[in-house]
Each structure stands twice: as C-alpha cells, then as structure tokens.
C-alpha cells in the first residue's frame, strides 16, 4: 500500500511507544503541575518583595593570646587534679549531713504547716507544681493574646511563663501568689539538693580518704554552689584563689570598655535610691549587671535576674535599671548590638517579607563564647598556680581554685594577674588569695 494511503487507516491499536495514562495518574500529574506553578509564582512574588536590609557579617571577636599547647597543658593538669583527689573528713561530713537532715525534716514540717497550698511530695517538682496549680496560683504575667500570636508580639513574655523546675518557682512569688509558701518550699529544696550532693560525696570517698571526681577540674556549673555548702568538711589547710566578677572582666575586654569595674554597692544604691543598700539589694544589682553583660534584656533579663535572686522584679523597673547601665557602659551595649545585628534573617511568608531576629541562635552564640572565655581564664590561673606550687592544686572551677598549701606561704597574686594580662591583651583582673 502506498505511504500516503496508510495515514488514513484508523487502527484499533495505539501507536508504538504510546503510554496509557489512567485517570488516577492524570489527577496526580495535574496536582503536581498546579503545585509547581503556584510555587513558581510564590517565589516570584517573594523575589519582588525581598527586604532591603542586608544580612550583616559577624563582627570580629577578640581571641586571647595563648601558647600553642595551652589546651593540652590544661588537660594534663586536669588529669593530675583528678588523680590527686580532694581530702575529705568523713566524720565531719557525716555530722554535717545529720545536722542538715534534721533541718530538712523541720523545713518539711514548716512548709506543710501553713496549709495554703497542700503538698504531697515536696521533693518532686511535678507534685509541687501540681499543688500550686490546684491552689489556683498563677504566674504574674498575662498569656499571649490571639492578636499577639498573629503578629508575633509577646513571644518572649510567653516564653518566660513556662516553669522549667524549682529554678522557676519564684514566678509564683508575687502579691497575688503565695510568697511565704514559695520561700518555705525553696528552704526545703535547698536543703534537699545540698544533702543529695553531700550524700554523693560520702559515697565516693576512697579508702585513702580522698574524693576523686572530674567535677573538681572544670566549670562545675550550678553544682559549684552545692559544693560551697560542704567546704567545711574538707581537710585543711587549704588556700583559695578567687577572682571577683569574671564575667565583667571578660566582657569589658571583648568590648574594649574603658569605664572601671562597677562597685555592686554603688549600683545597688543607684538602683534603689538608698544610702545603705541591703545584702539582697546588692545581690539583685549583681544579677542585673551580669544580665546586662550577657546581652539580656526585656523578659529574658527578668527571668535571668529572677532565677539568680528568686525575686519576681517589676519588668519596667528592670528596663529602667538596664537603661542606666547602657548609658554607663556604652561600649558593652554597642558590642552586643553589633553581635545581635548578625542574627537577623530575612523571612518571606505567603509573599509577606520581613526581617526576624533569631533570638535562640544569638543566645547560644553568646553563651558558648562566654563559657569558652571563662574556661580560658580558669585554665590560665590554674597553670599559673601549678607553675608556682606544683602538685598542690586540688580544685579548679570557674572563679575559685583550692590549693593544699602544706604550710607554704603563697605569693602568687601578682603572677596570676600578670599571666591574665598577657593572655587578655592588657585587661586588668582582680585576684584574691586567701589562706
């Protein structure tokens, strides 16, 4: 048959290479095509609405000047501290533990006697939280409203309404809360946590009367405060080296701050408008300045100060106090502004573009930076002590070092301050040595 005639024949069979498309496949194909078109359109609109604020680079962060094998030497020193251990008087520890246990039972009785909030197990956070909630005790700040949720406002206020544990119990301490009960529960909890620490010390004392644990060579964290409560059970004589306000020294060095280190007494006087500041006011001032040094503000500063002092401060007064510090230490404030500027990112949602501050990433960066520098300070001081009095260092923490002097006098204050000055480019650290 000629070729021009073949094309007029209709065949019941599909041509070669033809693929059948079922109705279900056709539906999926249509949906995919539709989605791709809408994504292209959304990307086009987002590109048209790209915000004009550029993403800023992180400003350079100063690094301390350290010898090449600094970290190796610190690790070796930590290993020697661990192997040496800490001499503990077991009998004193037992006696102190029994005394504290009796106080714990009394604190338990005292807390239950008030009966404004009824507790089952005072040592368990879920039970304590449940008891306060059952008594209709609430945190003082209002919840985020629907309109705030839609606009993204009030997110930090909402974040601090959460109660992470006993560390946040102070949030119930306000005029409409239960301040006396909160203080009683804290008295119980402090004794409970101290006894847990003391009991763990007792369980780990070796046959030679020495306690070996990696806790004694490093940051230590929140447990350092618990260890403070058991210093009297350590075998003497021990000397201690302490550094006042290490956070101030490090941040002032980072920000090239020229103003002198603040006096906490003067700060407390300024904040509260008094001539004679009380101990709690001084502690409050210390918490506020540390929060400022760590770049905290707003509700995050409120929570930080509250966790340190267990006081639910007035958020507006706290903002005013922070404002005073910003005026007093502008370089530190500017340092944090420059760092924070690098944590803004562009967001485009449904064609609406905006710039958003990544608070969590910023906080993580600051915390990590501070932890690293404070560990460096601790390492520099530890190596200086070991250089002057080898094999005597038994505890290395962030702001305290304990030395078994064996009767030797210590003349190392100026050596330590000079080593710190070398590492931190001329910064002045104030070190105290007490025997």
């Amino acid at each position, binding site marked *: 048959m000629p070729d021009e005639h073949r094309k007029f024949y209709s065949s019941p069979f599909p041509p070669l290479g033809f693929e059948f498309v079922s109705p279900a496949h056709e539906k999926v194909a249509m949906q995919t095509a539709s989605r791709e078109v809408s994504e292209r359109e959304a990307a086009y609109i987002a590109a048209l609405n790209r915000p004009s604020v550029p993403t800023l680079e992180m400003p350079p962060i100063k690094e301390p000047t350290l010898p090449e094998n600094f970290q190796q030497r610190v690790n070796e020193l930590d290993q020697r501290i661990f192997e040496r251990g800490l001499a503990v008087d077991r009998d004193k520890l037992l006696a102190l533990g029994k005394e*504290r246990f009796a106080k714990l039972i009394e604190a338990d009785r005292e807390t239950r006697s008030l009966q404004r909030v009824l507790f*089952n197990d005072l040592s*368990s956070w879920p039970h304590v939280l449940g008891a306060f909630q059952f008594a209709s005790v609430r945190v003082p700040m209002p919840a985020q409203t629907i309109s705030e949720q839609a606009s993204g406002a009030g997110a930090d206020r909402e974040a601090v309404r959460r109660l992470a544990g006993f560390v946040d119990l102070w949030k119930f301490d306000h005029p409409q809360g239960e301040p006396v009960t909160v203080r009683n529960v804290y008295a119980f909890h402090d004794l409970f946590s101290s006894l*847990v*620490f*003391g009991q763990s010390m007792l369980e780990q004392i070796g046959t030679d009367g020495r306690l070996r644990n990696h806790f004694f060579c490093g940051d230590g964290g*929140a447990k350092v405060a618990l260890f403070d409560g058991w210093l009297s059970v350590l075998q003497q004589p021990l000397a201690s080296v302490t550094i006042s306000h290490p956070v101030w020294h490090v941040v002032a060095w980072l920000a090239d701050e020229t103003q002198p280190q603040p006096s906490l007494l003067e700060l407390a006087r300024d904040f509260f408008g008094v001539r004679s500041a009380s101990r709690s006011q001084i502690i409050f001032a210390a918490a506020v300045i540390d929060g400022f040094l760590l770049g905290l503000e707003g509700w995050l500063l409120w929570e930080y100060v509250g966790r340190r002092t267990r006081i639910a401060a007035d958020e507006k007064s706290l903002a005013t106090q922070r404002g005073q510090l910003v005026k007093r230490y502008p370089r530190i404030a500017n340092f944090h502004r420059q760092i924070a500027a690098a944590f803004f990112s562009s967001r485009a949602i449904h064609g609406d573009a905006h710039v958003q501050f990544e608070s969590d990433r910023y906080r993580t960066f600051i915390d990590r930076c501070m932890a690293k520098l404070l560990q460096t300070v601790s390492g520099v001081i530890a190596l200086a002590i070991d250089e002057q009095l080898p094999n005597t260092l038994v505890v290395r923490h962030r702001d305290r070092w304990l030395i078994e002097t064996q009767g030797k006098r210590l003349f190392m204050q100026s050596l330590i301050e000079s080593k710190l000055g070398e590492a931190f480019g001329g910064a002045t650290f104030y070190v105290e040595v007490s025997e």
Partner: protein
Amino acid sequence: MRTLVARGDRTISGQLFRHGTEIPPGLLLQGEIDLGVDHRWLLEYEPSERRSLYRIFAPFSGCGEKQPLTNDELTMFALRP
C-alpha cells in the same frame, strides 16, 4: 516500702509528730501501723505519691532501708562518678 505520715499531731515513743510529717521507718511495729491506719491516725503513701526522706538519705537519717533518687536528681545535684 510505703511512707508513713502522721494524721493529726501524734506522740510516738516520746517524739511529737505534727500533722503531715513523716514517721521514720522502723519506729512502729506492723501491728501498730495497721491499728493506726484503721483508726485514721496514720496515712500510708506509695513511693510514687510521696517518697520517704529517711530512706532517701539513709546515711544521714540512720534508716536501715534505702530508696534511690531519680536520674534527673542525680544529674542535677549529685557528683556523678
């Protein structure tokens, strides 16, 4: 190992126990405990409801029985080996 708690102020073996306070393990015989519970002078709690402070801190309380702390408590407050 239940926790024994005084209901109302109770004097036991010359010691005064205020309402709601824990009675040390071993202070009362089982028969005395049963009588106290029946007469509602004493309350018994399971460890999941209320733990015994005497058992938790046995080295300091002198109690012959022990109760372990939770992993979270050991992580937050204790020296970990």
